[in-house]
């Protein structure tokens, strides 16, 4: 149950942290965005990070996902 209900939460959270971390590895080039010749990996990490919120928000926010796992997996009382 935990894996089924928690996988959106973990994967979307991981994707966000992965892209954010990749940005921090770019030195001054972190300032670039998609479309610049100097953008590292064509700016995919920067765009990936900004787009990652569509997964941490859409389809039930990560906050709601935590409520779901808390209530349906751990049996915690509803607030």
């Amino acid at each position: 149950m935990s894996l089924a209900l928690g996988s959106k939460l973990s994967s979307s959270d991981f994707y966000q942290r992965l892209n954010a971390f990749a940005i921090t590895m770019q030195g001054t080039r972190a300032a670039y965005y998609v479309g610049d010749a100097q953008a590292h990996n064509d700016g995919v990490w920067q765009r990936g990070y900004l787009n990652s919120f569509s997964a941490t928000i859409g389809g039930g926010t990560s906050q709601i996902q935590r409520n779901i796992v808390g209530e349906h997996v751990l049996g915690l009382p509803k607030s």
Partner: protein
Amino acid sequence: MSAFDNAAIAPAIGLSEEQAQLIDIAAGFARDKSPVEHVRALLTDANGYDGDTWAEIGELGWLGIGIPENYGGIGLGLGEAVPVVEQMGRYLMATPYVSTLLAAQAILRGGTQAQKEAWLPKLATGTAATLALCEAHADWDLTHITCTATPDGDGLALAGDKYLVTHARQAELILVTVMLDGAPALVMLEADEIGDAHLRAETVIDETRRSYALSLDGLRVAAAAVLDAAQISETLAHIELSASLLLAAEMCGGAHSVIAYTTDYLKTRKQFGKLIGSYQALKHPLVDAHMGYEKARSHLYSAAYLFGRQGESEMAVRMAKAEADEAFAFAADRAIQFHGGFGFTYDCDAQLYRRRAIWCAAMHGDARYHRRKLADLMF
């Protein structure tokens, strides 16, 4: 004994009268000139700022901060520019203010007497200037330079490429780091010496900024355009700390704003029958963001207070940049998340702040970079 052991026991924080006045005046000015609708309108403007606003900043004397009166400035130290930059950052202003202040600091610290007399009075009154430091290697070490200046007749031939030169097209003066005779050097390039073909507008994550790639190949400068070689190390170190201080100010201002923006939303938006600010999952991290901002701001004003003081200010500035980096990034990141379905759209203002936070972290070293430098100072 490390710098840490030698640091004064007395608390190093205090607001000068000038700083206190400037916070109020600058807040009113920035609020007036830069409501967010105007910020958005300027995103598609070629310069990214209003010429009128820039002229007024010059008239207010704010470009003279940190420039001695005998060079046409209003005196005061760079710490007095902190409240001005902070309030400008709060309202996402994007004029050449910081780049011009930094260029002036470079000339003041590292220029020849003739260069100081020729340029400081102009920079103090509204001539825009900027620094060309970044290269393709993306290293924050300002002494890591591959661009060159080679003797060529009675002048110097420049070669190589600079990147992320803010306001290069809008500046009348660009200070460029190059290798000259095997050592770092700063040279002055004037706008009319650079053809349009040498500048390429860049696509950067913070859309309020205007930055350019500058191709040096084919450009020549006079020998008199080289700054004082004896001062270069000190000048580059001063540029790094000055820039870090002012970026920290900009980030603190932005953090304040994005937290206020999110707080307003949490107090008005209802979901599942309740105002979303009542849910602790949102309330508590927003409080964490606020506390991070307050800590960063304390570090900022301590650094502003100490700036220029031998031995103490480097630690304070690096702490301020590191803290502001993280506080702003976290606050803007949560601002996107907590605006829900609206949050990850272009229309939500949170992205304006998050993009700016990434930009500021990329300039002159992120939190991790400054902490590494702090470790070297402390141990």
